[in-house]
């Protein structure tokens, strides 16, 4: 059962620009996480935002969460070619239940 839906599916930007990816989900969550995947590799955890938080920063990453709209956004500022990857949101629920991943946004940063 797919919970998160990322938007857009693909995004192409120039180096130095900001990249924004959105994630919508359907049911109440404990937290929402963002992951990055380089082509052909495993996923790497980027940032986690709890349901009682509205915004979180980590380096060039900024994540927002709007529980009333059941949506989150990931902003990457001053993008670099090395940011080229797929980005996934994953929703986490109460208790020890598995994360549910969206289909991802494929980001291309052109030098």
């Amino acid at each position, binding site marked *: 059962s797919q919970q998160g839906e990322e938007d857009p599916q693909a995004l192409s930007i120039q180096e130095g620009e900001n990249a924004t990816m959105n994630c919508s989900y359907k049911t109440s969550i404990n*937290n929402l996480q963002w992951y990055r995947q380089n082509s052909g590799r*495993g*996923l790497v955890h980027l940032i*986690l935002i709890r349901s009682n938080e509205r915004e979180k920063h980590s380096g060039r990453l900024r994540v927002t969460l709007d529980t009333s709209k059941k949506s989150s956004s990931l902003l990457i500022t001053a993008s670099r070619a090395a940011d080229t990857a797929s980005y996934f949101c994953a929703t986490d629920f109460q208790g*020890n239940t598995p994360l549910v991943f969206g*289909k991802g946004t494929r980001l291309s940063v052109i030098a």
Partner: protein
Amino acid sequence: DVKVTQSSRYLVKRTGEKVFLECVQDMDHENMFWYRQDPGLGLRLIYFSYDVKMKEKGDIPEGYSVSREKKERFSLILESASTNQTSMYLCASRPTTGTGELFFGEGSRLTVL
């Protein structure tokens, strides 16, 4: 440093073969997961395990089984591989108490001919 190791990065098997995908984590995590990833479908959960000898079906368990005889090892078994099981398989783990972050292996790309 946290490590999840998947035994094979690339495998090519024939239809009907029995396939074992092995995953080992060195972090003493209770929870382990197998996902498959296909273009346009994202990550889908096949099986997961909360503890040794425990297993739970995920969203797409058909055609798969799992084994967790030791805490650090979670194996995915394809009893009789079929071409529609050609995919990227991702293993992950996390502790029961923690932030909820998942730690992934590098993936195993399986091609069934």
